[in-house]
């Protein structure tokens, strides 16, 4: 077992965790804002720009640049979509700065978003929007954004720590500020402690503790688990967004859970249950075109009714639109399904709701500062901007806007900061011991545990929840956590040892799963993504509260805090009088 003396130690000024939209933007803005000579380091669990979910963005980016659209309208949609739970200052800044950020992406970073034939930006509308607002690059918007950002970062003198996994946020001796971050250099299998004056955490959440999930494989809630252990308050932790149509291809393939795009339903795709019937109109007058949460619940209800292990999900069928037409319009999706053996154009494909996005996260102010000096959080790791529901297209807007804000804020704050802080060596030692724990135990089957956790979360803390279910869920999670602590990993060679990282992934996921269940119990109403069968009503909007979870010692406590309607109150609007309710042509 390495002693602390064997840890590689390393100093920098600005340290950024993660290379999604938030991390990469932060690096670029930090370079623009920080005094010359500031050392910037970017550390990531995978390869720069090649991991995380920003790259996987398909639909696009919400920005109020479309004809007739306004920041006010975007803001109102965000508040209403979030069922009045969003932090309004954050939501406002999101909508306002998205305009700047998209111009920056186009003019400075080099993205090219799809155009109308006259050369102006093309905008489309996701469900839940009252204007055509989403800019995109075909259905591979994330690749365009991340590739361009990645090039900008790679070609600047920014220090890179690739395949470096953050495992602990280490405070200074008196706990008043952050000293640095403990990593595992995954390739070497060694520990590395990096001190920095400011640290941005942008590890992107990612609800991958569900049986079906969309995010990329490197995302396992490490960030939120680290924040929890540091004692930071987390909000909206019960809010897990499910995408209604994840591919169902069996539990032996990593393809399962991956998204079949929203546009399929928008274009007229039909959902068919086990008895061959369309069912969505039983749940909502918009049928398949209803919002994500509604469709997810519809599908989930049908699945429960059926309860057939042979045919778990429902089917999406496009064939009535003409296979050639479908092939042309959804080229990428059709090819992707074909690669995994399904015919989307002419046949039908089995789908399930799949955990997609995590609205909860660390409490931050609208400049990304947290409760502890030196730590900043942006992107999916930060809570508040979306409330109970994230609109399609607001995710990448959020990560890029706040990543940039974080870079600027760190660049400014660092001017006031003196020397690097010394770490609390006992916390450092404890984190190392924690990570090395499995190498002292008898190797076991980690995948089995992960499957148990994913089933427990899907069944008990999933699309539809009850008090009894979540309590059962908590019991399972606790058992799984205990079992994990007794499960070992062959530690003879820790270099690029994926199984060790699977163990660490499980540790983060189990910790955060518990918080999700506890926060779910604390919210006794149904808002957005959180649906309680025992409390199906949204409750009084005026007295809306959000949940705040915090770990003290070994226990997680969840409280409630009143939502501040700092810009607009329920029942009111910031839109000028006489504005139409929606600008989107109704089908």
């Amino acid at each position, binding site marked *: 077992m390495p002693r602390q003396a064997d840890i590689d130690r390393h100093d920098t000024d600005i340290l950024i965790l993660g290379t999604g939209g938030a991390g990469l933007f932060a690096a670029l803005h930090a370079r623009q804002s920080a005094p010359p000579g500031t050392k910037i380091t970017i550390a990531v669990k*995978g*390869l*720069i720009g*090649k*991991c*995380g979910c920003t*790259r*996987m963005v398909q639909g696009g980016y919400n920005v109020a*640049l479309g004809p007739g659209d306004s920041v006010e309208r975007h803001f109102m949609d965000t508040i209403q979509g979030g069922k009045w739970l969003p932090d309004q200052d954050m939501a406002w800044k999101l909508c306002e700065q998205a305009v*700047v950020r998209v*111009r*920056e992406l*186009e*003019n*400075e970073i*080099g993205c*090219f978003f*799809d*155009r*109308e*034939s*006259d*050369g*102006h*930006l093309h905008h489309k509308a996701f469900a839940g929007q009252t204007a055509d607002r989403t800019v995109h*690059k*075909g259905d*591979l918007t994330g*690749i365009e954004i991340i*590739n*361009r950002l990645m*090039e*900008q970062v*790679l*070609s600047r003198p920014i220090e890179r720590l690739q395949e470096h996994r953050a495992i602990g946020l280490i405070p200074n001796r008196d706990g008043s500020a952050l000293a640095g971050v403990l990593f595992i250099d995954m*390739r070497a299998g060694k520990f590395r402690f990096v001190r920095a004056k400011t640290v941005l955490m942008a590890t992107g959440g990612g609800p991958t503790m569900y049986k079906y999930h969309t995010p*990329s*494989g*490197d995302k396992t809630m490490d960030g939120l688990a680290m924040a929890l252990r540091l004692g930071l308050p987390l909000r909206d932790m019960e809010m897990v967004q499910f995408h209604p149509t994840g591919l169902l*291809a*069996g539990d*032996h*393939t*990593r*393809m399962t859970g*991956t*998204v079949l795009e929203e546009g399929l339903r928008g274009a007229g795709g039909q959902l068919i249950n086990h008895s061959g019937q369309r069912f969505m109109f039983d749940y909502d007058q918009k049928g398949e075109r209803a919002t994500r949460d509604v469709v997810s619940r519809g599908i989930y209800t049908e699945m429960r009714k059926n309860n057939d292990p042979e045919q778990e999900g429902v089917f999406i069928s496009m064939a009535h639109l003409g296979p050639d037409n479908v092939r042309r319009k959804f080229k990428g999706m059709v090819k*992707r399904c074909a*690669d*995994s*053996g399904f015919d989307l154009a002419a046949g039908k494909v089995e789908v399930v709701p799949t955990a997609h996005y995590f609205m909860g996260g660390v409490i931050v102010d609208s400049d990304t500062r947290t409760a502890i000096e030196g730590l900043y959080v942006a992107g999916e790791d930060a809570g508040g901007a979306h409330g109970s529901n994230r609109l399609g297209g607001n995710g990448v807007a959020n990560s890029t806007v706040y990543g940039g804000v974080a870079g600027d804020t760190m660049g400014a704050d660092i001017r006031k900061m003196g020397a690097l802080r010394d770490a609390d060596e006992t916390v450092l030692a404890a984190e190392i011991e924690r990570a090395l724990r499995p190498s002292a135990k008898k190797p076991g089957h980690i*995948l089995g545990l992960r499957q148990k956790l994913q089933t427990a979360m899907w069944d008990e803390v999933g699309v539809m929840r009850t008090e009894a279910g979540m309590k059962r869920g908590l019991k399972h999670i606790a058992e799984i956590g205990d079992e994990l602590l007794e499960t070992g*990993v*062959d530690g*003879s060679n820790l*270099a*690029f*040892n*994926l*199984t060790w990282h699977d163990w660490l992934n499980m540790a983060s996921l189990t910790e955060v799963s518990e918080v999700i269940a506890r926060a779910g119990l604390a919210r006794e109403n149904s808002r957005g993504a959180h649906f309680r069968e025992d409390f199906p009503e949204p409750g009084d909007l005026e007295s809306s509260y959000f949940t705040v979870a915090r770990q003290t010692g070994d226990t997680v406590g969840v409280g409630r805090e009143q939502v501040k309607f700092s810009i607009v109150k329920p029942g009111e609007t910031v839109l000028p009088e006489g504005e139409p309710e929606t600008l989107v042509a109704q089908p």
Partner: protein
Amino acid sequence: MEVAVWRGDETGGRYETFDVPAQDNQTILDVVTWIQQNSDATLTYRFACRVGMCGSCAMMVNGTPRWTCRTHVRKVLKGNRLQVAPLQNLPVIKDLAADMDPFFDKWVRVGGRHEPGKTRHDQIEAIPPDTPDRENADAGIECINCSVCYAACDTVRGNPDYLGPAALQRAWTIVNDEKHAGRQQILNTVAASDGCFNCHSMGNCTVHCPNGLDPMNAIAGLKRAVTKNRFKRGG
């Protein structure tokens, strides 16, 4: 099925054989994952998105570079046997994980980043999507930098300094991007030795690009553009 997997690191290695149960809807990534999760916990490989967007998972499958998360076993299985190795033309880190830095270093070296002519305070330019330049730029834009073409190119194999198909394709995109402020500079870079003129149009890149892109054609475009530019400037 019988799966031979390359095990080792930069100092060398050998194939080890595993017996993996066949399943419907099984990709090469699933096969490799199965081995790590059920048979040999020390196996190293790389993936992220699992749906063909991140370009982290490419490996040599039966001697051909492929994205493994989107390669169905059925498509490549030969006599119930499979052979999986790390991507060639790149250094190996461990087992199936290659070091992709040289690939990205060339992406940077070619000048593959946007040089802005405008700022975030300017309006977004109206650019019709169907001009020939824009269509040329768009043709290569969906590159996921997976390195499959780079591993497939025997010119890279012979000349490790050659910029390679993906970086050159990026250069071609930029040359056609009217928003880019330094297009001449890119032409100079690719005209130098180790640039576009090393390409022998052997087409491995185009044939194997999992996204159906055509770097060979992009490089031909560069050759033409540099040549034209050369004569225009006289000598």
